[in-house]
């Protein structure tokens, strides 16, 4: 069994890589240039040259002008193929070289300063970030002409206090008058600590998916992994609650339905569940929002996961607030699963009730209650319980729709935002995560099946 599980886990690696290949292929093979799609619609006031420049800049910034294979290997890792970053980042000055064609055909190379964005996480308050940005910009402006040495020393000192980094611990550089090197060190530090590098992995030798580095968002440059972790804290409880609720409703429903097999009640229950199963999730969510939001039925909040005054509530109030907000999304996530599970439960129960040992149990005079709940239920639960593992990824997948409808800042919403912004890193990361979850789910269900059903052996 252990060997089997290990083998399956090892098999997950190539499958996940396959998933990455599929997404990457879709991304590049989809008709239309990714850069064109991602830079968005063309403003009619903009000249074609401006549009071309914008697209070319985007391509350079996100490394889309490298070969597809390099892009893929770089994303997968574990080696950081563009250790020195993209060519236009190799300048030690935060400048990017742009070649411009003059009117007489001469080509002139200009240095265009890059905007210096503060790395995330530095200084909790806005003033700290602003000071950082101001100091770095000032340093940048001084750097090409290291005339004012005292000014460089002063800026370096202030920056060191703010960032907690000393590029010149012994004061040797200043003593030797190598102020340009001091500035260079500062920018080297800036690159490695949150500067906007291509692939955003700086000069680290490792990177990519295999090094558990999911990259940074294209626009905000914040790490995708941290954002996903934060979003999962919302989505996982919602999904688990929905799954639990689905079981709590579906199992008794399925049992009742199977026990009253052939009657009008069973037919009605089956039909209702069937109809329920056909309701599109997004529409069910919208209808709930309409029902509770638009008709003046102010019983439940419809949007978001917290009220506006959430922060002012006490612990108990916060809990109640979140729970009240979670009711409608959980219902929306649950009803499909209830319909699905109770059908499975009914079928499984009917199959078990037709078995010989049930007839034996009845023949030896056991009460119907004991027969159903002791003999039949346990055996018909086996396939249902193992469905749990394969249900979880379906719930996380379905959260795209539910979280969009109810405006909940969870994983699904994040994936949707990534798609809307055409942000490659968000899309890749969320899809890979869902893919891995699915595989783990399938593995868990196989293992659970083997555990509860002694007839199955994985050798």
């Amino acid at each position: 069994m252990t060997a089997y599980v290990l083998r399956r886990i090892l098999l997950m690696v190539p499958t996940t890589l396959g998933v990455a290949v599929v997404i990457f292929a879709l991304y590049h093979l989809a008709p239309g240039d990714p850069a064109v799609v991602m830079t968005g619609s063309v403003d009619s006031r903009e000249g074609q040259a401006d549009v071309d420049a914008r697209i070319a800049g985007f391509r350079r910034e996100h490394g889309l002008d490298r070969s597809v294979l390099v892009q893929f290997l770089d994303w997968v890792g574990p080696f950081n193929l563009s250790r020195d970053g993209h060519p236009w980042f190799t300048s030690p000055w935060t400048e990017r070289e742009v070649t411009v064609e003059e009117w007489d055909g001469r080509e002139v190379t200009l240095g265009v300063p890059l905007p210096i964005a503060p790395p995330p996480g530095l200084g909790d308050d806005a003033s700290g970030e602003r000071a950082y940005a101001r100091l770095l910009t000032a340093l940048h402006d001084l750097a090409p002409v290291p005339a004012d040495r005292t000014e460089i020393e002063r800026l370096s000192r202030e920056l060191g206090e703010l960032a907690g980094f000393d590029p010149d611990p012994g004061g040797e550089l200043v003593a030797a008058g190598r102020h340009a090197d001091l500035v260079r060190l500062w920018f080297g530090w800036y690159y490695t600590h949150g500067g906007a590098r291509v692939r955003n992995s700086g000069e680290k030798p490792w990177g990519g998916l295999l090094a558990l580095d999911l990259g940074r968002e294209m626009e905000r440059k914040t790490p995708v992994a941290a954002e996903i972790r934060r979003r999962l804290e919302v989505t996982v409880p919602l999904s688990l609650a929905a799954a639990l609720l689905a079981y709590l409703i579906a199992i008794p429903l399925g049992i009742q339905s199977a026990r009253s097999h052939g009657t009008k009640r069973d037919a009605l229950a089956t039909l209702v569940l069937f109809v329920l199963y056909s309701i599109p999730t997004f529409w069910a969510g919208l209808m709930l929002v309409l029902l509770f939001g638009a008709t003046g039925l102010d019983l439940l909040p419809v949007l978001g996961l917290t009220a506006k005054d959430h922060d002012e509530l006490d612990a108990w109030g916060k809990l109640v607030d979140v729970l009240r907000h979670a009711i409608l999304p959980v219902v929306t996530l649950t009803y499909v699963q209830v319909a699905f599970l109770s059908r499975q439960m009914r079928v499984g129960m009917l199959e078990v009730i037709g078995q010989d040992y049930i007839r034996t149990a009845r023949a030896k005079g056991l009460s119907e209650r004991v027969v159903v709940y002791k003999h039949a239920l346990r055996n018909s639960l086996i396939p249902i319980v193992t469905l749990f593992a394969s249900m979880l990824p379906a719930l996380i997948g379905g959260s795209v729709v539910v979280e969009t409808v109810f405006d909940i800042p969870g994983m699904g919403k994040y994936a949707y935002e990534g798609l809307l912004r055409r942000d490659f890193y968000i899309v890749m990361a969320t899809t890979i995560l869902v893919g891995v979850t699915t595989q783990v789910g399938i593995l868990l269900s196989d293992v659970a099946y083997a555990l509860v059903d002694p007839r199955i052996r994985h050798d």
Partner: protein
Amino acid sequence: MTEAESAYSPDYLDLVARQLGRRPLFKLGAAVLALLYAVAIYAPFLAGDRPFALEAVDARAYRAALRTLSAVTSSMTRLFDEPAGARAALELERRAGAERLVVLRRHLSPADAAPLDELERLWDGALDAHRAARAAEAERLCDEALALARELRTELEPGRASLRPVRSYPLFESLHPVEVFFMVLWLCVLAWPAWNPLVNAALLRRDSGRIRRWRRRKWILCLGGSALAGLAWLVAVGTPPRTFDVAPYKAGLSSGDIVASRPPRLPPLPMAYAETHSAEGFRPPTWTRASELDADGRYVRGLRRSRPDRVTGVLPPATPVLVRYGEPAANSPWRHLAGTDQLGRDFLVRMVWGSRVSLSVGILSAALLTVFGVVVGAASGYLGGWVDLVAMRLIEILQSIPALFLILLAMAFTDPEVVHPIVAIVVVIALIRWTGVARLVRGEFLRLRDQEFVMAARALGLSPLRTIVRHVLPNALGPILVSAAFAVAAGILTESVVSYLGFGVRHPEASWGSLVNDSKSAEHWWIQLFPGVLIFLTVTCYNLVGDAVRDALDPKMKVFA
């Protein structure tokens, strides 16, 4: 029971049909689906702004043609002086003149139209003279033609000459031959309960064996007849020009430019799917109280009621509702049964036309993915070996990502300028959803591969392709068809979700899903309610039908229960 009937043993299809006939839910589902498809197919007759038949004087077109006769002639004269390339331009002018004459002649009695023949004679004479390099004669004839054209301009003015109304059939002229094909085909399908027993009784004399032999022939006849009708339409009417889908008839009839001798009839919903009513943006369904407007176009009740400004006491500006010819009155409950969207387009009309997109995306994607799945599954199940290995790995990879994720992803990175979104979504759904069918077909093929009849086929020396297509595939067809029925439902659902999330069908086209996306505000409840009901109805019916067919196809079914 006659002897012939008792000797007839029901075959598999008879049993399936009998089993299906016992299920009221199947019948209900199939009937609703037939109706929904009828709405989609006959959409031009249900909703549109083209009259069925029009007998009218188009005074505007007549006046325009008359006014430009002299312009055509004088530009011909000018072209005579141009040395090079004038020949083609002259021909063009001549054709433009002919087109104007057609408009004029249609409206005039033969006696009134006589001077037009004279004009045409002068034109041709001038062109001939020009071709023969007799410049002076050409010049003279042209001057005569110009004088005549100027004279006609006053002589044939609508007030002086009596204009005959012209008959035309705008609605039918706008039909595409493919539409005609589907309309005839669907007529056959819808009328099947009526004509099938008749044919069986009259032509086939209730002979069960004969009826069985004629099953396929009936289908071929229906398809062939519809195809013939489409072809005939192509020959007789041609393909309509692809123009923006708002016809000028309603505007002309309202303004008095088109004077009809008999008021023409419009379809029951007399609006085009792209026809905007600028004063009626987001108007609620007109049978609700909140939709009532006063003469100035201000809402009288409900949330959007116009209130005078608190300081100045002035009412906000409003535009009165423009009621075009044939439309229900501004406050009639029938005006917009399902409300309007932001541009004041009638929502019911858009749903009717959107059903074409939604339903055809479902069918096409299911067909395409079934073909993919059958090809891959058959190759992998029958050939085995490394083909099987590669296919199974690919399926495993594709199945470990929720399909909706992948479809959204592919749609997000597809440039709608390069590939039309409707085409893109069909292909994307098929490319991602084929795995289920492939696994199913593979399983069936693994089961059938080693059975005696397949071995016999192989032993006879048939090629693998022939063995698969002729011998194995027909035996695996039942489950494939059932999964295709469910795939249609899933396709419709997927298209609606993708369009709702904004990655699918775009304006001016509409599908049910993209219609839900027209407004996110809970205030516009009709936009979120009605298209969803249609999606739900369709998906439920497909699931009902698929479920019933699956149960009926089950060979273990109780035959005589």
